[in-house]
């Protein structure tokens, strides 16, 4: 059953990856990266319960925080040049 959840999450991740690869605009890519990150967190949580090792959850927490910081770092890039077009 953990396997089913993991497979579902992997499926979501591969679709997000496809969007990140195709993404016509940069924002599509950022969105896909963000979604990929949150799904990685879920995957780690599922894996940690499946392995019965709660210390993996620490890693999931780090992923959440780093993912947020990563997205903001990318958005900051747009602030440099107010005239920038995509």
């Amino acid at each position, binding site marked *: 059953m953990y396997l089913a959840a993991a497979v579902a999450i992997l499926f979501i*991740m*591969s679709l997000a*990856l496809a969007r*990140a*690869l195709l*993404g016509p605009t*940069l924002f599509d*890519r*950022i969105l896909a*990266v963000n979604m*990929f*990150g949150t799904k*990685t967190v879920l*995957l*780690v949580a599922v*894996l940690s319960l499946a392995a019965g*090792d709660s*210390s*993996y959850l*620490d*890693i999931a*927490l*780090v*992923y959440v*925080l*780093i*993912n*947020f*910081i*990563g997205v*903001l*770092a*990318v*958005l*900051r*890039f747009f*602030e*440099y*040049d107010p005239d920038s077009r995509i």
Partner: protein
Amino acid sequence: MLLVTALGAVFIRDLFAVIMLFGIYSLVSAGFFLDLSAPDVALTEAAIGAGVAPLLMLATLALTREKTTPQPRAKRSIHTSLLPILVVTMTGAALVYATFDMPFIADPAGPAHNHVAPRYLQASGAEIGIPNVVTSVLASYRGFDTLGEVFVIFTAEIGVLSLLGFLADGSGRQYWQFEDTANLRRHNILHVVSKALIPVILIYAFYVQFHGDYSPGGGFQAGVLFAAGFILYAMIFGLQAAYRVVSPTALYWAMAIGVLLYGGTGVASLLLGGNYLDYNVLGSDAVHGQHNGILIVELGVGICVAAVMMSVFFKFSGRTAHFYDDRREVRK
């Protein structure tokens, strides 16, 4: 999935997208490390590969990107495009041929599992007394290695400092004297959310630092996480505000203190009658000594890594602020 991402990174021309894909690539490889039961490594890779490395690459991109879209390059001659492929294929084939002599994956008879590793696993419980073997190998058995790595990080930062630490425009201004226009302060919701989030990140960094003996974590990961908290602050409130919290000079001191703490622990154990970095003499008995030694050494690593990461970020974005400051003046 790893392969697809890496291939994507090859074929997409837009550098920005390549950097995004590199972030995904790091996350995937971190997940892979977790699957191969290496949580410490996964933690480090996630914090570094998905957090800090793309951030620095983006800062470089902001500094170097062209204003105009580059002209489509003249079609390369067949010579220049085929040669790399040929070289790569031949090297790859040679390496694949070499794998047939390698041990199978997860084979307990492989040479890596039969030298010092079993000793670490069996003896570290009694000799060092902390559950996380990675931490005990890192800080105690292989303390010299880690000391060397910390020195490498320190030296790399000195290199960055000598390349980017000054501005060569002859005005005598410093890189931290420029208004950072790229802050995210106008996003009010973000402002409030990160105000509450930054303390959580910093506290969590301390947890990773000091709980590293019992769960995945340690000085390297905690240092990066701590730096990430500050970087978030600097991104949202602007670099000027961040310099007021931690001045660039304080970071230089912190870096040196971190390395000295590590080296000094070795000297202290030398003075107390042991060998260099032999923590047995640092406490009332050997196990306590090891505990104290590992705690101090990890703290040194954490301080050094955090200071280096923050300092590198400050330099890159300080320079970016200067770059766009100049550009605005030109436009006026």
